[in-house]
């Protein structure tokens, strides 16, 4: 076995030192009644070549963003990952080390995470960012719990433009500790509707995603004001991190917490994970923050160095009273994000964001011009937009797939509002720098071609 070095001679010599007759005897403390009296019912080990061909066959049985023209978004984005990001983040010195509890031999990880924290602060305009949470949805739930602790209140108001899975996770997380959630809908233009009725003295936090699940950029300033007016915290949820390069910084708008997903920062889509839970807040709230923090300090000779700090918030010190139960986080994804953001840098991230916005706008305009197609929301969008399509969703996406296109996404899956007319559907399309104009033109052509859908695919449309 190539991962286990023991030869039979080693085993014998070691047993002799231990004074045990055989390996079996080392397991004597396990009562026979709970022993597995047989071998595991699993295949024998594969050779490396066999493993690769077995897994390779599974991989080949998936369409993906390189095999198809790709227009899916909705919280997971197909962005170009610069080669350096893969090369640097996959260095085994980073990937095969543990959480940097032993600072003196973990300065590489610690400095990288310190830089990540700084980058996230700069990007969000917040004072302090943690070393990562699991992913966007649970990070959002942690933001709610933190707001509840800070305000002593128990209700959280969520815009329905918040990613449906995020809302579901918030529900799941809050339910057991007395939290309550309430949802507010959207206006005609795709932005959150009037909140006046929803916020009150019981509101711990208002959660608004922007750009929201429909791709629409919210006007956050008045929403922050409305929350603060009721003594609630405002949580800005971000699922498309690239937007931070172009849109006003949450901190400058008065947000109290920024929570969300950092997948766009150089992390592959990987069928939904591992991702990167973003979390940043104001300095005053540090002690209630969940997750690990890296801080600067000095060694005995006064040289700058970095350590994990403020651990008294954490489970391994505070146990039942910790601010969160998180232990293993997404360190390597945070490091990836740090490399990515440093590679793009001050100019690049903005240019990239602009390119996304303009490319998506072009696609939106072209689709809007197609007869029978509508863009239901008039508010500005970033790199995603909703299209009202005069056909059932499943038929559209099946036809697009035949044309080598993946997307858009049927919103009816989460929003009954969008399912009223079975003959039409609402699809979400995402356009990033990975979709050159020619590919968008092919998409538009394919959508245009759908008018012939009724005839050849009549069968499918009756189900």
């Amino acid at each position, binding site marked *: 076995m190539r991962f286990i070095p023991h030869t039979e001679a080693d085993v014998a010599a070691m047993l002799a030192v231990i004074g045990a007759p055989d390996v079996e005897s080392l397991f004597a403390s396990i009562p026979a009644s709970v022993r597995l009296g047989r071998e595991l019912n699993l295949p024998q080990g594969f050779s490396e070549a066999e493993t690769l061909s077995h897994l390779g066959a599974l991989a080949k049985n998936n369409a993906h963003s390189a095999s198809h023209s790709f227009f899916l978004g909705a919280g997971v984005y197909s962005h170009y990952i610069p080669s350096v990001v893969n090369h640097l983040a996959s260095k085994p010195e980073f990937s095969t080390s543990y959480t940097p509890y032993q600072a003196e031999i973990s300065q590489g990880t610690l400095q990288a995470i310190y830089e990540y924290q700084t980058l996230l602060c700069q990007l969000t305009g917040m004072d302090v960012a943690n070393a990562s949470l699991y992913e966007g949805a649970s990070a959002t739930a942690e933001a709610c719990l933190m707001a509840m602790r800070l305000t002593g209140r128990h209700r959280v108001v969520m815009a329905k433009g918040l990613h449906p899975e995020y809302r*579901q996770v918030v529900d799941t997380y809050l339910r057991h500790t007395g939290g309550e959630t309430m949802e507010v809908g959207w206006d005609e233009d795709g932005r959150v509707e009037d909140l006046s009725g929803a916020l009150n003295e019981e509101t711990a936090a208002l959660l608004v995603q922007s750009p929201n699940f429909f791709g629409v950029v919210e006007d956050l300033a008045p929403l922050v004001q409305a929350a603060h007016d009721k003594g609630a915290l405002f949580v800005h949820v971000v699922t498309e991190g690239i937007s931070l390069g172009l849109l006003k910084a949450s901190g400058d708008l008065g947000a109290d917490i920024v929570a969300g997903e950092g997948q766009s920062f150089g992390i592959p889509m990987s069928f939904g994970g591992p991702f990167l839970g973003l979390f940043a807040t104001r300095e005053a709230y540090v002690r209630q923050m969940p997750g690990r923090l890296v801080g600067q300090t000095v060694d005995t000779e006064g040289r700058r160095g970095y350590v994990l700090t403020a651990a008294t918030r954490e489970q391994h010190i505070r146990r039942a009273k910790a601010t969160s139960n998180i232990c293993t986080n997404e360190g390597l994804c945070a490091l990836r994000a740090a490399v990515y953001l440093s590679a793009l840098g001050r100019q690049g991230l903005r240019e990239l964001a602009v390119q996304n916005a303009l490319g998506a706008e072009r696609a939106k305009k072209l689709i809007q011009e197609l007869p029978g197609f509508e863009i239901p929301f008039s508010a500005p969008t970033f790199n995603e937009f909703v299209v009202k399509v005069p056909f059932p969703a499943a038929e559209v996406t099946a036809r697009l797939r035949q044309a080598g296109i993946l997307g858009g996404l049927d919103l009816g899956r989460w929003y009954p509002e969008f399912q009223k007319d079975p003959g039409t559907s609402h699809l979400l399309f995402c356009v990033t720098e990975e979709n050159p104009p020619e590919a968008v033109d092919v998409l538009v052509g394919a959508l245009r071609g759908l008018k012939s859908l009724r005839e050849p695919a009549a069968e499918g449309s009756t189900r």
Partner: protein
Amino acid sequence: MKDPASPARGRPDRVGASGLILNEPLIFERSSPGRQAYSLSSSPDGLAELSEVLPPTLCREEIPGFPEVSEVDLVRHYTRLAGWNYSVDHGFYPLGSCTMKYNPKVNEDVAAMAGFARLHPYQEEEACQGALALLWELDLALREITGMDRMVLQPTAGAQGELTGMMLIRAHLTDQGNPRRKVLLPDSAHGTNPASSTLCGYEVVEIKSDERGLMNLRALETTMDDETAALMLTNPNTLGLFEEDIKAICQIVHDRGGFVYCDGANMNALMGIARMGDMGMDVVQLNLHKTFSTPHGGGGPGAGPVGVKKILEPYLPVPVIEKRGERYHFNYDIPHSIGKVRSFYGNFGILVRAYSYICSMGRDGLKRASQMAVLNANYLCARLKGRYYLTYDRTCMHECVLSDKHQQAHGVRTSDIAKRLMDYGFHPPTIYFPLIVKGAMMIEPTETESRETLDEFIEAMLAIADEAERAPGLIQSAPHFPKTSRLDEVKAAREPVLRWQEDSPP
């Protein structure tokens, strides 16, 4: 023993040595306006003006402080940083409870395949059957390894697995009319256990371990009541000892309508040998980043799948992976589901690596891994217990817990020994955990370490024991070789500096 702080830079008879490394400032301090490490494909013509798309009031002008570096700056920055880390690829990393085994390289290749890495979670099922098949097969394999009826692969890490498991228990009890109030834990429990219980709305009651270091049956008997939802137990426990009375323990808890939750972080001792399901435990989380060799990433990502008995199946988070004929399918229609603990389906990239590992190891390999992990731990323990105090002197499983009791007389503490090990070229063990052993050093060698490596480590530990008697100052001032000497954690906590600022002193 010669002082390793002396200029014996490369003494070939020991692992740790002193050599050339390179300093490197923060990336922000490397920044220079106008440098770039990126390239964007040129924008198409005929686009709208930005202001037509997004009104300037919504936009920012710039990102103050963001770095601007060239590609070579960036590469050198991270190359130098990498040189400051100790990793499994460098050497022995016996962090107890962390199972820092070797992470096979081929698993990285597999996870990077375009058909996995470039897969979007909202692709229609027809377009991702390979990924669904993988999830299904992994589910089956983990069921077989744990003896549970069903797995849920969604939880992101061990702690989220614990939370998920506790939510399932709570959901069932709630369905039955009373979620109950309390959760019992041994005082040796990992910090995530109480934290997860609290997050699930339970009050934590700690049970003092008995003189064997095991669950105190009598105490359990008296504490377990019908307001107690569950007992959370790690098995083998955090002392590396198997809970011998596990059947009786489960009986007590079940008799009073409670559930037994198994923290399965220590599964590496038991593969192919004993299964949580067969022990009577109702829920277990596995830490794939431990037992199943996915790289720990300097803090993550990991994955914490949860296995449950049939009784808890109705509450599983959605979606649940199913196989119908030859087709794989996500079932979202679980009426009693607790909902979701995170977006999508879990840390898929980690699940891929773990599945690849299981394929490589196979039936015999997994069992052999557990056997050799236990052999290694007992070998270490046997050779070290003469010089380092062993509180619970029993045959251990995959790890053993020593302490600094003998060294304290010389003013040398566990944290000093840990730092001194660095000079010898080793990562220290987990220290000061479990809390029930004063000055604990929790050593988990894992099966991927050879006898020679263990011997090198043992010699270092014995040399340090000698030094503690002869030259304690050398240990108290350690480490001497790494990039920095001992870092001031107190200062970091008292005067928090949690980010670089434009005007930060270098």
